[in-house]
């Protein structure tokens, strides 16, 4: 297979949006059989570069040359025809929810007529099977994609992309919604592609991925390639070069909780799991961690009134309390920064300002009328403290880069003081420096409230937590204080297989019901 050597040259790509130059003269070469890790902070221009290479945006200048020939990337179809395949960060763009896995894997063939008019399911499965196997997807092929976990959807999107035998494969944050064990499957698939002579551009914020996969590293900052690293790879140097300065180790001292704020008693996450008690106090930051669908998210969703626990009681400030819905939780001073901001938090038609103020309009209003002046002042204060980079707070929220959107979503819940601040994956798709800013902000404001965050990434958990609580298959399996943490046992608790107390084999339904139903 490796007789094909794909040589890809990216030459002098430039892109301006209005007066704002996003990419200045980006050039690099990548050969088949190599993995280039592309590092860049939020807003460095990574997404723009990816969109240009995949034909979504037009570059103002510059060309892409594959094996000596300039290729046409003026639209997504021609980029695909040229052999440039992109798996985008937002998984749902790569899959059709209402079709089965097999249909998704063969979607391009189905759409462009490489199939006969009448499709036999047998033939479909026969062709889809090797594709699914290649990437280690072991779910029945006629399962609907909408029933899959986020991780399996990601695998489907990637399997579909690589079914086309790409010359250049671009993976944009492929592991951002995968847990570490789930990512291993993906890494295997990426390595297989490398062996087959595909040139791979791998974009990620996770240094562990990059350490494992990268053959070369390019650092992108402010629309320019500012660092190029060949083996032996200097990972710290690459991060420094991407950020433009060295990132110090974060160290924080353990803060013990003060007054009792929130208590969970005898809570059971599903009918088969064991009940547990959890006590949260003011001033501490508690991180719940575990694999995807381990139950951490169900805990915070239950506290916010998004779903109810199978059994158990809640106490808020030592008084029994049961939230009937998000509005009720918010009225009682329990706030939540949601995961997957595009679906759960952002109002796309609203400005930055209107997005931030949404839950607290009442406090800016007299007789129902919103005082725009008060709103503007309060919001600008909040987005100032969360260090959102913006030009005008009346611009649409979607004009911000991903990391800044996330900071704005944190700012939203900083408008008012709260009793309990819940955060579900607050660092999703956020670069290191923004992540640290958010982390510091959470720590510096934590004093009078209880902060509970869900982070599947252990590194993120270590950065902000006073206490880490581990969940595994809807059971609470461990608790660690940050100053006396024992990493091997923590990792072990996260990854351990569930106790085989249920006779039936673990079906995928259990996992999907809990979070995606």
């Amino acid at each position, binding site marked *: 297979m490796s007789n094909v050597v794909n040589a890809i040259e990216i030459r002098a790509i430039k892109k301006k949006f209005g007066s704002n130059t996003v990419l200045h003269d980006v050039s690099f070469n990548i050969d088949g059989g190599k993995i280039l890790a592309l590092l860049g902070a939020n807003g460095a221009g990574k997404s723009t570069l990816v969109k240009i290479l995949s034909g979504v945006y037009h570059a103002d200048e510059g060309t892409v040359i594959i094996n000596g020939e300039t290729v046409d990337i003026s639209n997504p179809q021609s980029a695909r025809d040229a052999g440039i395949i992109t798996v985008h960060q937002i998984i749902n763009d790569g899959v059709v929810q209402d079709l089965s896995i097999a249909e998704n894997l063969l979607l391009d063939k189905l759409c462009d007529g490489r199939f006969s008019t009448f499709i036999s399911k047998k033939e479909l499965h026969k062709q889809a099977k090797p594709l699914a196997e290649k990437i280690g997807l072991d779910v029945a092929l006629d399962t609907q994609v909408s029933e899959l976990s986020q991780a399996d959807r990601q695998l489907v999107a990637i399997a579909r992309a690589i079914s086309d035998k790409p010359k250049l494969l671009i993976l944009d944050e492929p592991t951002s919604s995968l847990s570490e064990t789930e990512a291993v499957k993906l890494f295997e698939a990426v390595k297989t592609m490398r062996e087959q002579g595909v040139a791979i551009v791998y974009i990620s914020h996770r240094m562990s991925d990059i350490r494992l996969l990268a053959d070369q590293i390019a650092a992108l900052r402010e629309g320019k390639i500012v660092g190029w690293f060949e083996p032996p790879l200097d990972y710290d140097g690459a991060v420094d070069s991407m950020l433009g300065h060295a990132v110090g180790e974060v160290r924080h001292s353990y803060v013990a909780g003060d007054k009792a704020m929130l208590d969970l008693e005898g809570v059971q996450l599903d009918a088969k799991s064991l009940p547990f008690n959890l006590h949260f106090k003011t001033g501490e930051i508690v991180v719940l961690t575990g694999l995807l669908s381990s139950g951490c998210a169900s805990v915070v969703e239950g506290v916010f009134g*998004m779903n109810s626990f199978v059994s158990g009681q809640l106490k808020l400030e030592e008084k029994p309390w049961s939230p009937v819905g998000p*509005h009720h939780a918010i*009225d009682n001073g329990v706030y939540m920064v949601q995961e997957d901001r595009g*679906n759960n*938090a*952002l109002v796309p*038609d609203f400005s930055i300002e209107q997005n931030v103020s*949404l*839950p607290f309009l009442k406090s800016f*209003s007299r007789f129902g009328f919103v005082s725009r002046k008060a709103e503007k002042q309060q919001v600008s204060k909040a987005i100032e403290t969360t260090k959102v980079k913006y030009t005008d707070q009346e611009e649409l929220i979607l004009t911000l880069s991903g990391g800044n959107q996330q900071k704005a979503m944190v700012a939203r819940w900083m408008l008012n003081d709260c009793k309990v601040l819940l955060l579900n994956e607050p660092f999703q798709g956020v670069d290191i420096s923004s992540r640290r800013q958010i982390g510091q902000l959470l720590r510096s404001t934590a004093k009078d409230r209880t902060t509970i965050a869900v982070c599947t990434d252990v590194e993120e958990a270590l950065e902000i937590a006073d206490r880490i609580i581990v969940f595994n298959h809807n059971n609470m399996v461990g608790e660690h204080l940050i100053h006396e943490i024992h990493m091997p046992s923590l990792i072990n608790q996260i990854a351990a297989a569930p106790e085989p107390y249920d006779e039936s084999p673990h079906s995928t339904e259990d996992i999907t019901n809990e979070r995606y139903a």
Partner: protein
Amino acid sequence: MKDMREFAIKYGLLILLALMLVIFTLAEPAFLSTINMMIILQSVSIVAILALGVTATLAVDGFDLSIGSTAAFSMMTASYVMVVFDGGTTMAILAAIGVGVVVGLINGFMTVQMKVPDLLTTLGMMFLLLGLQLIPTQGRSISAGMSLGDGETATGSFSESFLFLGRARIFDIIPVPVIIMLILAVITYLFLERTRHGRVMYAIGSNEQAAKLAGARVKLYRYVAYVISGVFASIGGILLAARIGRGDVSSGNSLLMDGVAGALIGFAVLGAARPNAQGSAIGALFVGVLLNGLTMMNTPYYTQDFIKGLVLVAALMFTFGLSNKRA
């Protein structure tokens, strides 16, 4: 080029409206007379009120196809209360508005609680009301002195104060329905643009899940939206009954199409690209000016629906095509 496009999105429709006024005036100088302007406004007012109502449901990303038949049913209800029960102005108005509230609540219940898609809910409601309005009078129109089913003659009649609503002119020039329409337009504008309730409704329309997780009472606001559109349609129906002085079984027919067209054309006003009160009012005016002008220029009546449709389609291309804000 880009500036041109932005300019076109923002002012295209208003320029088109101005252009129409100029062309019609050149062709027929009487077009611009105060009397004709008032005729246009009068004819537009009821449609504009319906358009304002449907704007509320569009804001929460819903739709209300039952506004035309709600207006017609309210008209029949008001007429029935007056003519058959001799119930007086206040009772007639209250009964008609009650119809709007009940229809709104049922539409809300169907979409929110029963989870029937709004297009289907309100389509069903439309047929239901169109049929229901015929039953009490056995399919006949309602007018003073009509004979009832049992051989008797109806004793009631349309009161002066009721007819005042549809026929009187303030200062001998501005028709009452126009005043009512303007008041409702201002109220709708203030409600949608300036209150937190309006803001939350737009948030629900843009991303329901996000609005819910930010604490919005999504179900409640959906009910509110349907009740607003029901009540506005009823007010339209009352004004219609007051203008024609009878309960006419067929006069509500074109209201749905014209009202919805007004609200949708309103998306294109000042580049809002979303349902908005001022846009809906201007959209209705746009349709009214067009039809009045065409009539004055002796365009055959049978081409008017076609032209109306053409304008609607063009306006929608303006909004959605040029702005590419909503995919």
